[in-house]
C-alpha cells in the first residue's frame, strides 16, 4: 500500500514535470525562431575561446580547426589552447599552430580542467570568453548565432545546442537522441530562466561575470554546473542559442558512459548540497521552486521505479524458472486473452508519461535535426536507457551519502 502510494507520488511528479515542459514549449514556440537573430557586425564583441586539453592529441587539432573555421571576424577572436600537463603527444601536436597569430598555446602543470580554464581567463582581455573542450567541435555559425543574445545587457552567458559528433555505434546513437532531448529541454529551461549548467563545450560568457563572481572552482569535477548555479545564485541571466550547434564526442562503451554519468550525477548532487539554499526558495523563481527540486526528485524516482521493476521481473523470471523445472516448457499455453492485459493504474499512467515523453522527443528532434524521423534508437533511448541509468544513479547517490570522491576518467 505504502509502496503503491510512493509510486503514485513519483508518477504524478514525473507527469507534472513533463506537462510543465510541454506547456512552456507551447507557450513559447511561436517566438522561438525569431529571437535575437541579428547584430551589426561592427558591434560584434571580441572573443577568446579557451581549449583546455589533457592528453587530447587525437582530437585537439580538429577542435582548434573547427574554431578557426568559425564565421567570425578574424581580428575579433582568438584561440587559447591550454595544455594542462599532458603526458601524451599533445605538446608536439600543438606545434603546428605555433605560427598562427590567432592562436596562443600555453603549457602548464596538471591541475585539473578548472585550473586550465582559469589560466585562460586570467590571460585574456576580450569582451567574451568561451570554452571548447578538446573533444568537441563547433559549427561554423555557432558563435555568430550566439552574439545577438548579448545585446541584452542582463544576459551573462549563452549556452549552445549540443549534439553528438558522428554517432557510430548503438550506444552513441542512443546518446544522440538524449542530446537532442537536451537541446529542447535547455531551450525550455532558458525560457524559465532556470538553466543550471553552462556546458563545457562552447558556453560563451561575458568577461565581467568572472570579475563579479569569481572564476571556476573545482566543484566536484563539474565546474560547468557550479558556475551556472553560482550565476543563478547572483541572479545573472543565462540564455540558450538553439541554433548554435556544437558537436561532442560521446562515450562509445558502457564503461566510459557509466564513468561520465557517474561524475555528472555525483557532481550535481554535491553541488546541489552546496547550493541547497536555492531549493524551494521562491527568490530563485522557477529554478528554485520547480526545476531543481524536480531534478533531485527525478533521480530518486528513477531509482525507485527501477528497483520495483527489477523486483517484479526477478519474481516473474524465478517463477518461470520454477515452472520449467517442475513441468518443463509447454508451448500450447500461449494464447491471447485481453483479460490478462495489464490495466493497472500504474501501467496506464506510465503509458501517458511515455506518450508525452515521445511527443517531447519528437519536438526535440524537429528542433535539433529539423525532421521528425522516428529511428529505432529512439525506442532504445526510451526503454533501454531507464534501465541502465540507475547503474550510475545508485553509485552517485551512494558516493554522495558516504562522501566518496570519484575520478574523472
Amino acid at each position, binding site marked *: 500500500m505504502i509502496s503503491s502510494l510512493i509510486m503514485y507520488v513519483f508518477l*504524478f511528479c514525473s*507527469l*507534472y514535470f513533463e*506537462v*510543465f515542459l510541454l*506547456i*512552456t514549449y507551447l507557450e513559447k514556440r511561436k517566438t522561438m525562431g525569431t529571437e535575437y537573430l541579428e547584430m551589426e557586425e561592427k558591434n560584434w564583441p571580441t572573443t577568446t575561446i579557451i581549449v583546455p586539453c589533457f592528453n587530447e592529441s587525437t582530437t585537439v587539432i580538429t577542435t582548434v580547426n573547427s574554431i578557426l573555421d568559425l564565421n567570425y571576424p578574424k581580428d575579433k577572436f582568438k584561440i587559447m589552447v591550454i595544455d594542462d600537463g599532458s603526458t601524451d603527444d599533445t605538446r608536439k601536436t600543438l606545434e603546428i599552430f605555433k605560427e598562427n597569430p590567432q592562436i596562443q598555446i600555453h603549457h602548464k602543470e596538471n591541475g585539473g580542467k578548472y585550473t586550465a580554464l582559469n589560466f585562460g581567463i586570467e590571460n585574456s582581455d576580450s569582451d567574451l570568453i568561451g570554452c571548447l573542450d578538446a573533444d568537441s567541435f563547433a559549427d561554423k555559425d555557432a558563435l555568430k548565432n550566439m552574439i545577438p543574445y548579448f545585446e541584452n545587457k*542582463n544576459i*551573462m552567458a549563452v549556452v549552445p545546442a549540443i549534439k553528438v559528433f558522428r554517432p557510430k555505434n548503438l550506444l552513441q546513437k542512443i546518446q544522440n537522441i538524449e542530446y537532442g532531448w537536451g537541446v529542447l529541454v535547455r531551450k525550455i529551461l532558458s525560457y*524559465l*530562466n532556470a538553466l543550471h549548467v553552462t556546458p563545457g563545450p562552447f558556453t560563451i560568457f561575458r568577461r565581467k561575470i568572472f570579475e*563579479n563572481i569569481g572564476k571556476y572552482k573545482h566543484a566536484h569535477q563539474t565546474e560547468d554546473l557550479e558556475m551556472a548555479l553560482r550565476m543563478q545564485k*547572483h*541572479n*545573472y*541571466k543565462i540564455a540558450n542559442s538553439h541554433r548554435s550547434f556544437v558537436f561532442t564526442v560521446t562515450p562509445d562503451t558502457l564503461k566510459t558512459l557509466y564513468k561520465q554519468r557517474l561524475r555528472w550525477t555525483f557532481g550535481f548532487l554535491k553541488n546541489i548540497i552546496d547550493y541547497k539554499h536555492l531549493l524551494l526558495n*521562491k527568490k*530563485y*523563481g*522557477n529554478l528554485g*521552486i*520547480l526545476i531543481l527540486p524536480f531534478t533531485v526528485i527525478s533521480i530518486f524516482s528513477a531509482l525507485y521505479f527501477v528497483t520495483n521493476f527489477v523486483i517484479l521481473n526477478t519474481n516473474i523470471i524465478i*517463477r518461470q524458472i*520454477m*515452472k520449467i523445472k*517442475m*513441468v*518443463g516448457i*509447454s508451448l*500450447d499455453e500461449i494464447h491471447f486473452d485481453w*483479460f*490478462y*492485459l*495489464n*490495466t*493497472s*493504474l500504474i*501501467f*496506464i*499512467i506510465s503509458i*501517458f508519461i511515455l506518450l508525452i515523453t515521445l511527443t517531447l522527443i519528437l519536438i526535440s528532434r524537429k528542433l535539433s535535426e529539423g525532421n521528425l524521423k522516428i529511428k529505432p534508437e529512439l525506442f532504445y533511448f526510451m526503454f533501454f536507457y531507464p534501465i541502465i541509468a540507475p547503474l550510475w544513479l545508485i553509485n552517485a547517490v551512494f558516493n554522495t551519502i558516504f562522501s566518496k570522491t570519484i575520478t574523472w576518467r
Partner: protein
Amino acid sequence: MEIENDREKTDWLKYFYTFVITALIFATAIYISDYFSNKKITQLKTMGDKISLDILSSETQFSLLTESSCENIDDNTLSREVGQLGEKLSYTEEKIGADDLDFQNLKTYYSLLEIKDYLLMKKISEKCMDNTVFILYFYSNKGSCTDCQNEGYVLTKLHELYPQIRIYSFDYDFNIPTIETLKSMYSIENKLPALFINGKVQYGLKTIDDIKKIIPQTKIWDKEALASSTESNI
C-alpha cells in the same frame, strides 16, 4: 556587484494549471483502469453464471439419468470453464488484491461452484462407473507456502496430460463455511500444499511422478494413450 534581479516572478498560475492538467490526466488514467477492472469483474461474473447454469444443467441431466444414458453427459466443457475461471481469479487476486469486496464475492461464488461441481461429478462417476479421479487441492497465498505456486503448475500440467483427473483448488485461508466443512470432513491440516486424492491426504510438494504413483489409473491411461497413438500411426 550584483545586477538588478530581473528574474521573472514565479508563475504560480502556470503551476496551478499544470497541476489541473496533470490531475485530469491522472483522473483519466484512473477512469480507464477502473473501466477495465470492472469489465474484467463482469467477465468473471458472467463466467461464474454460465458455469452455474451448466452445473444446473448437469444436475438436471443427472436427475434424468435413470431415463438416459451416461454418454449424454458432457462434462469436458464445464471442466475447462471452471479451470479458466480459476486461472482468471488467481490473476485478478494478484493484481487487485484479495481484500477487494467484488473479488471476495467472486471467489466465494467460485469456491461454491467448485464444491457443487465436485459433488455432482462424483455422483455421476459412481453412477456411470467411470474411472474419473478427483483431486482436492488446498493452497495458501500467504508467503509461508512457497511450494503452493509450484504445486499449481504441477496440477495444471497433470490435468493437461490426464483430462480424466478433475482438480478442485481451495484457498485454505479463505474463511467461508463450505471450505471449513471440507477441511474438517477430510481432516486437512495446515501443512500446505495439501492434496486429497483417493481418500487420502498428501502433504507437501508432489511432482507429476509422485502423483502418478498415488493414482494407479494413470498407468492404464498411459497404456490406452500409447495404444491409440500406435493405432493411428498404423
